[in-house]
């Protein structure tokens, strides 16, 4: 039903605006700094390491934009179910002939869709920067970083960022299914990667010290696996709690 998707969009519009600002801000900062340098210092001479400066200049805000997008994921998860309970509009919806399953389906479509759009947009910008880098410097005949090296450089942080974003969204979603404050849900979502990484670290270094050697995997990888197991579990439990909840 279009009406429910429209309602989800309007309900979460402030979160989406915050998300767009967070996404764009690092690029705006870089552009402003460049303009400032061009206008007041009139220097475009970056020395012999011009490729490195160029790559860093655009990769750093891209990574920053990705990190700030995590906030949007947590906010979406935290506000998705609690937002209506907080302003009590959930009571108004309860009088309408909308089943919990229908409401949940539309919430999932909207939230997962939005997260997916953020993620794809992010990947598109990243791909655009990499493509621009190759176009610019391969034409000049100097390409110090090969494609596979660049992929090795970008892929791991991207993977951890994705897993962390997923964990934040799903944990915030879980808590928003039974708490009444979106701020608390979002904070728990934001804190969840810290709690999980502390748990993995505690297990690896205190409870089971030969952890890494025995399993032939670094603790970071276990963080990744934990995120990938906990996230769908939290999402599923949160969805069930929402559907089975008696009160609006």
């Amino acid at each position, binding site marked *: 039903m279009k009406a429910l998707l429209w309602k989800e969009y309007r309900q979460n519009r402030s979160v989406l605006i915050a998300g767009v600002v967070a996404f764009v801000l690092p690029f705006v900062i870089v552009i402003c700094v460049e303009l400032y340098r061009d206008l007041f210092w009139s220097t475009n001479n970056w020395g012999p390491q011009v490729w490195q400066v160029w790559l860093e200049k655009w990769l750093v805000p891209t990574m920053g934009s990705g990190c700030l997008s995590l906030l949007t994921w947590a906010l979406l998860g935290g506000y998705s179910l609690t937002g209506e309970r907080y302003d009590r*509009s959930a009571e108004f919806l309860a009088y*309408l002939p909308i089943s919990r399953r229908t409401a949940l389906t539309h919430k999932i479509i909207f939230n997962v869709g939005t997260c997916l759009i953020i993620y794809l947009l992010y990947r598109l910008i990243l791909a655009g920067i990499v493509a621009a880098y190759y176009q610019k410097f391969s034409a000049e005949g100097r390409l110090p970083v090969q494609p596979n090296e660049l992929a090795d450089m970008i892929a791991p942080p991207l993977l951890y960022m994705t897993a962390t974003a997923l964990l934040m969204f799903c944990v915030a979603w879980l808590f928003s299914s039974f708490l009444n404050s979106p701020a608390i849900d979002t904070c728990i979502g934001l804190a969840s990667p810290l709690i999980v990484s502390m748990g993995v670290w505690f297990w690896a270094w205190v409870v089971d010290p030969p952890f890494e050697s025995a399993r032939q995997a670094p603790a970071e990888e276990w963080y990744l696996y934990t995120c990938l197991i906990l996230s769908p579990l939290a999402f599923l439990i949160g969805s069930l709690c929402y559907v089975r909840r*008696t009160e609006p």
Partner: protein
Amino acid sequence: MVSEAPDTVIELKNVAKVFGSTTAVRDLSFCVPKGTAFGLIGPNGAGKTTTLKMMMGILPCTNGRMNILGLDVSSHPQTIKQRLGYVPEQNFIHRWMRVGEAINFCRSFYPTWNEPLCGEMLKRFDLGGGKKVRHLSKGMLAKLSLVLALAHDPEVLILDEPMGGLDPIAREEFLEGVMANLADQHRTVVFSSHLLGDVQRMVQTVGIIDRGELLTLSSMDNLLKETKRIRGVLRDGCQPKQPPAHTIWQRVQGREWLVTVGNFTSDLPLQLKSTNPVQDVEVIDLTLEDIFKDYIKGRRVQR
């Protein structure tokens, strides 16, 4: 599950609702026939809103059976909501919506949406579609709530203290809106309010509820006809010996004995004189408000 009487629209049988250790509604049973207006009155915390929310399928019953329009509420909540209109005490329509957006939003869930009726009510209540819900006064919000509850031509209209906190003008306009729709004799109305004058004006049957229990259920005419207060003047130093049957409430203050009875007959004053040391007897007619107060006071004394 089909209800037993064919003209019964609402049927509650031994309905109970328990929240943890608190029993909000206990063993509640009544029927509301089609096309009638039923008033459910009671003090704060009596269980009225809980009962109405159970009727709407928002809260499940702990015990008992509840049929609306021949359907079991617990198994067909969405079907029933399609055919019900509900005006709550406090309306929590999304504050960011405009009036027009709220109407468009609700319209999409009701295939029976009556566009001319909706437009007519908006005009009657002077509700502009561009106004934001957050900028509406309490009275305007109640009116919007009534429009949203009536515009899909519901067979049953449930009003849960919809006029609380409204000024007399807004209350009058709201009631006129309800009354105009009551002219349709097929519509059944369940009305809960603390404004007992309005209840007396609107409903044909009334139920008084306190602490989750139904104290009385009667047609408005019968209740007003059969419930009377008798003021007796007792002889010096005497106390009442035998209160009449169906005494709802009584009080002795000096020589004055006030007793409210539920089955008043014309020969009751004489009976009272013959069985008690009473000199004079006076029969006082009661309003719904007086009857309600006496029922509640009588119950509190019993406890």
